[in-house]
């Protein structure tokens, strides 16, 4: 949840900076805000061992990275299932009280702030959601915050500076970083990197309207519920009642409802790209559901096998299964070196995919995925070319509207994600019926390749968007850019969750292979 806390911290910052322009004052006001938020009942299970402080990696301030990694843990599907059991109106407050209680003294723990703010926002979507909107918008205008694209460049610079800056610990903990912001030197730089994240997330929430806020909020709550760091270890075990497809389905259904509304109200509405609907169109939902079915079945088979064993046999099998589990929890996706200029035509991806897929016999599906990627690449090239041409001859070539580019981006992301899920589903089926052993490491490598591709794609598309929207106002362009980053981060989460669904499948496959060996 570290990244969520991170994002949330940033929202808190933003709220505060809106009230007090001065950084150090804002700390105090934030603490005050925290107090009132805490009254709503919020908790931090382990203030000492916050995921943030335990994270060994240097925080990456670049927008997309933050988003990608943040969201990786976001659609926590296990709690989503819980949500469905509770009546709709109650779900947010109920969740809130679940994880609530310890109010924070001072402003020591940033993570819990985020929680308070977010949960308040989701609990009372209508009012707070709007308040947040205004706050963010005001903050933007008053601070003159640059566009996300400017920021991403700027932020990278800052990041470099920061790495070379001698402040100990400042770069590893967001809270400390803010604490010692004066020491970091560029206070404004800090502020803008903070606000860039909030701007990204905040803006999308706003554009998507309340429904989106509700939806994002729900997913957020799920992750927040995961506050306990120890829970992460057992996540793999617990998540398998997962209904990731249900989360997605909900989103899709809402989108359908929305477009149905719009359709009846206004027939010549602008192109609106709905990730969920497109994802379903590419059969991503079905593959996901089928994968979940297989995962669940395998899981219960593994359980029943474990029940029949005892003594040394049981211990040994447990050990072996733990090894498999181990390789599933090790996966960390860092897109540190995702270079926007790389892989112009998608052939690089194809090569990497081939490498990762070596020994996995699902070539047909992998081909589909490569094709999807190639068509995205050529689409991007075409969009880019158009802009170059329009510079020369503006009247002849009809410029792509930012909405069109945005729609293309969302569509590409949805397709690539759906194809990735399909690939995982096919892999699951192949693993289940073939007796060969499949290494979890191969699958994790594949996951990394896919997530990198998503990240790369989102960067390319946002560049296109920036080019296409050079004449557009920030209010028009920014939410679109944000939308692309957000869906990209969602895509990466879905892929990684699908990867997790493969774990019980590898386990049962391992058990079956073992049985065959002993029988021989």
């Amino acid at each position, binding site marked *: 949840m570290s990244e969520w806390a991170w994002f949330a911290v940033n929202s808190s910052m933003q709220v505060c900076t809106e009230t007090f322009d001065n950084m150090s004052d804002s700390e105090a006001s934030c603490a005050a805000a925290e107090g009132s938020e805490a009254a709503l009942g919020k908790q931090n299970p382990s203030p000492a061992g916050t995921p943030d402080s335990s994270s060994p990696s240097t925080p990456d301030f670049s927008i997309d990275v933050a988003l990608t990694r943040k969201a990786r843990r976001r659609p926590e599907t296990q709690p989503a299932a819980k949500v469905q059991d509770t009546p709709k109106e109650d779900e947010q407050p109920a969740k809130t009280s679940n994880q609530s209680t310890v109010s924070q003294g001072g402003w020591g723990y940033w993570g819990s702030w985020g929680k308070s703010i977010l949960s308040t926002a989701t609990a009372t979507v*209508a009012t707070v959601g*709007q308040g947040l*909107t205004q706050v963010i918008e005001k903050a933007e205008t008053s601070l003159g915050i640059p566009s996300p694209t400017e920021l991403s460049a700027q932020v990278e610079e800052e990041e470099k500076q920061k790495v070379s800056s001698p402040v100990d610990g400042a770069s590893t903990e967001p809270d400390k970083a803010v604490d010692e912001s004066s020491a970091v030197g560029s206070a404004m730089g800090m502020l803008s990197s903070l606000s860039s994240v909030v701007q990204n997330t905040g803006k999308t929430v*706003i554009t998507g*309207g*309340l*429904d989106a806020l509700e939806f994002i909020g729900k997913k957020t709550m799920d992750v927040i519920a995961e506050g306990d760091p120890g829970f992460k270890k057992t996540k793999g075990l617990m998540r398998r009642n997962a209904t990731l497809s249900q989360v997605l389905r909900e989103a899709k*259904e809402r989108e*359908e*409802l929305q*477009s*149905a*509304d719009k*359709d*009846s109200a206004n027939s010549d509405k602008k192109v609106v790209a709905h990730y969920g*609907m497109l994802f379903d169109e590419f*059969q991503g939902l*079905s*593959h996901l*559901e*089928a994968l979940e*079915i*297989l995962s669940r*079945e395998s899981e219960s088979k593994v359980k029943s096998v474990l029940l029949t064993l005892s003594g040394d046999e049981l211990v040994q099998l447990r050990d072996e299964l733990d090894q498999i589990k181990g390789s599933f929890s090790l996966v960390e996706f860092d897109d540190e070196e995702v270079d926007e200029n790389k892989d112009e035509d998608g052939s690089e991806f194809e090569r990497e995919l081939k490498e990762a897929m070596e020994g996995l016999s*699902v070539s*047909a599906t992998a081909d589909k995925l490569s094709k999807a990627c190639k068509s995205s690449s050529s689409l991007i090239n075409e969009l880019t070319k158009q802009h170059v041409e329009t510079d020369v001859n503006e009247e002849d070539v009809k410029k792509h509207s930012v909405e069109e580019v945005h729609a293309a981006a969302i569509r590409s992301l949805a397709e690539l994600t759906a194809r990735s899920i399909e690939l995982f*589903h*096919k892999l699951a*089926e*192949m693993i*289940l*019926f073939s007796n060969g052993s499949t290494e979890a490491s191969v699958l994790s490598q594949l996951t990394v390749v896919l997530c990198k591709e998503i990240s790369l794609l989102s960067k390319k598309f946002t560049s296109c968007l920036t080019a296409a929207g050079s004449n557009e106002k920030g209010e028009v362009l920014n939410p679109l850019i944000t939308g692309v980053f957000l869906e990209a981060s969602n895509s990466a989460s879905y892929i990684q969750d699908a990867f997790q669904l493969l774990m019980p499948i590898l386990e049962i496959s391992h058990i079956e292979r073992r049985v065959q060996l002993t029988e021989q």
Partner: protein
Amino acid sequence: METIWLYQFRLIVIGDSTVGKSCLIRRFTEGRFAQVSDPTVGVDFFSRLVEIEPGKRIKLQIWDTAGQERFRSITRAYYRNSVGGLLLFDITNRRSFQNVHNWLEEAQSHVQPHSIIFLLVGHKCDLEAQRQVTQQEAEKLAGAYGMRYVETSARDAINVEKAFVDLTKDIFELVRNGDIKIQDGWEGVKSGFVPNTVHSSEEVTKSSRQCYC
């Protein structure tokens, strides 16, 4: 608008391998016939809208299962959430007809506590010269299990629409009469969205709120 439908039905297509399940579905959903196709691995998915009465559209989500025996353990897991099914045999392959009974048993035992409305399909009816199963005996078998029977050809596009539309209509009637109910946690029938309906007050307030953003 294309995305508006009354219901979504999930159909599963089963039958021996090489009877032409994927080809039939492709003809129905993509309107073309693939001369060569790889054996299906596990399950694949297709979807299409069907207009059963003017203005009444149903979205069909079709699960195309692998016929090969080696995939059986996997495909079994997929029956439960289907409301209807096409059970295919190849009229030029007697063995595939004899296996119809096994397929039905298999489906019945894995679909509990729900049930599937099946349609028996004698496929490849363009290959009349090689026919090994007469229409009469197929109809008799279908009748014994309370199924409709239809003969189709994906290559010549014979009865392909009819097969899917008839099944969809039958299911629609059952849904309309309340014999099949939409249930939480069951994906067989899902309710769709209808344009121009009166929205609940909650929705109305929601959208008006959005304007202030």
